[in-house]
């Protein structure tokens, strides 16, 4: 009886998944699991970790017989791996510049599409003990601030926002990626860090995200593109299509991304 119950529940789930796939249609809805199978390898920016892990599971449920494997890392490191011949089907980056290096190297199939945007917030320890309310506060002498290095997307966005606001900040460290900047806040080593809204949201148990209006001037576009030497071309196309579906968009929005 128990096993029958489980089987019924599984059947119900499968049906629900099938219905949701066909129902949330639109022109770009994934066309069932027709012809798509095997492993789909997605190289994705570190800031997509939480959202893409969920989307990967949903995609596998919508396309039985597929398995999504992620390689999460800094966008530039991923771009280097791809141009050096790493076998990947899809590349989702945190900045157009990193995707451009892949396109320029002739490794992309088709044109990159911006699928989400991300905005900076000020990550502060839970409860905001130092009372940081504006971007201008970050220049206070009693604060230790972490910012990403200019060479990585979150650092470029931070510089843009700070320059636009005319705020002079002397950070104690220029971190190599956004997660490293965030962990310095989590560990209490700095009082504030400029990170993406999505990262602050993913770490909501330890940090608060303080929104600031100047971040609107430094919005980061996330492009995604299928790769020319993709081992699983059909899988790549299906994954790109799935990213445009409403269940995927719901996951991305819940993670704090803006969808265009």
């Amino acid at each position: 009886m128990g096993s029958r119950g489980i089987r019924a529940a599984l059947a119900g789930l499968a049906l629900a998944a099938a219905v949701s796939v066909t129902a949330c249609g639109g022109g770009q809805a994934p066309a069932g699991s027709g012809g798509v199978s095997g492993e789909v390898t997605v190289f994705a920016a570190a800031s997509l970790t939480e959202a893409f892990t969920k989307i990967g599971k949903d995609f596998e449920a919508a396309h039985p017989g597929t398995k999504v494997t992620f390689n999460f890392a800094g966008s530039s490191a991923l771009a280097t791996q791809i141009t050096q011949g790493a076998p990947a089907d899809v590349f989702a980056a945190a900045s157009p510049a990193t995707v451009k290096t892949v396109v320029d190297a002739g490794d992309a199939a088709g044109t990159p599409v911006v699928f989400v945007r991300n905005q900076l917030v000020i990550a502060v320890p839970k409860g905001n003990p130092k009372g940081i309310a504006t971007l201008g506060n970050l220049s206070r002498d009693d604060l230790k601030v972490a910012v990403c290095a200019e060479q990585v997307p979150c650092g470029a966005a931070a510089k843009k926002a700070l320059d636009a606001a005319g705020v002079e900040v002397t950070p104690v460290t220029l971190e190599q990626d956004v997660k490293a900047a965030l962990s310095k806040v989590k560990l209490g080593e700095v009082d504030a860090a400029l990170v993406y809204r999505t990262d602050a949201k993913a770490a909501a148990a330890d940090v608060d995200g303080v929104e600031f209006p100047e971040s609107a001037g430094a919005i980061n576009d996330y492009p995604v593109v299928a790769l020319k030497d993709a081992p699983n071309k059909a899988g790549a196309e299906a994954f790109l299509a799935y990213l445009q579906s409403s269940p995927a968009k719901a996951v991305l929005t819940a993670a704090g991304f803006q969808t265009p």
Partner: protein
Amino acid sequence: MPVDELQQAGAAGRLPRRRGHRRLPVFLILPAGLGLTFLVLPLVALLLRTPWRELPQHLAEPAILAALRLSLLTASLATVFCILLGVPLAWLLARVEFPGRRLARALITVPLVLPPVVGGVALLLLFGRRGLIGSWLDETFGFTLPFTTAGVVVAEAFVAMPFLVIAVEGALRGADTRYEEAAATLGAGRWTTFRRVTLPLVAPGIAAGAVLCWARALGEFGATITFAGNFPGRTQTMPLAVYLALETDLEAAIVLSLILLVVSVTILVSLRDRWISSP
């Protein structure tokens, strides 16, 4: 060189001078050659991609010089720190029987096994503002190690010290203890024996350990960027500069690593010549 050694050993009567004593054993030479190739080929690949013309231009950049100076300074300070604490530790492990010696010996290898980034986090949890010791340092002296040059030295020493301890302990265990016993029977105290007999005996081991330790400290990346952060002139060592250059410009990153490589090899070779020329 191996031929010479073989001949010496043979002359000393330890090897039978029978057939083929001059022929190199293929079963050793083949893997040895492969090993050398395996270690050298990646370097060759790097050299082939190096934009040599840009080298002087990068060398003149103040930011690069600052990173290079900081790297050499912190690696040297870390090595001194490791020698001061590591040689006595190696002596303890090699010469003194105490309960838990095996455990202590195993614990020393922890920094070797631990991913350096995790080592950096561990250091933060100990010396950070909220850390076990760090919170006390902060409250009592208003001093914190993270994000300082001293923090870089601490991170490098943590990762590099096992190399020194293991090398020196090996040398101590290989050294003949009868010299120390003779010194003791002639009335030398333990400190005098250590200073006048033990240290000179294992000096080559200490030198080898120090070189390994310095080289490891010079190349340190993970623990440094995690514990000390990355700020030009204060905590940005060459490996950190290389990593960030890699984000935007592969060629620049290659040039930077090459500069670090050339400088460190030059220093090591010149030091070795000095030691070897005065036997």
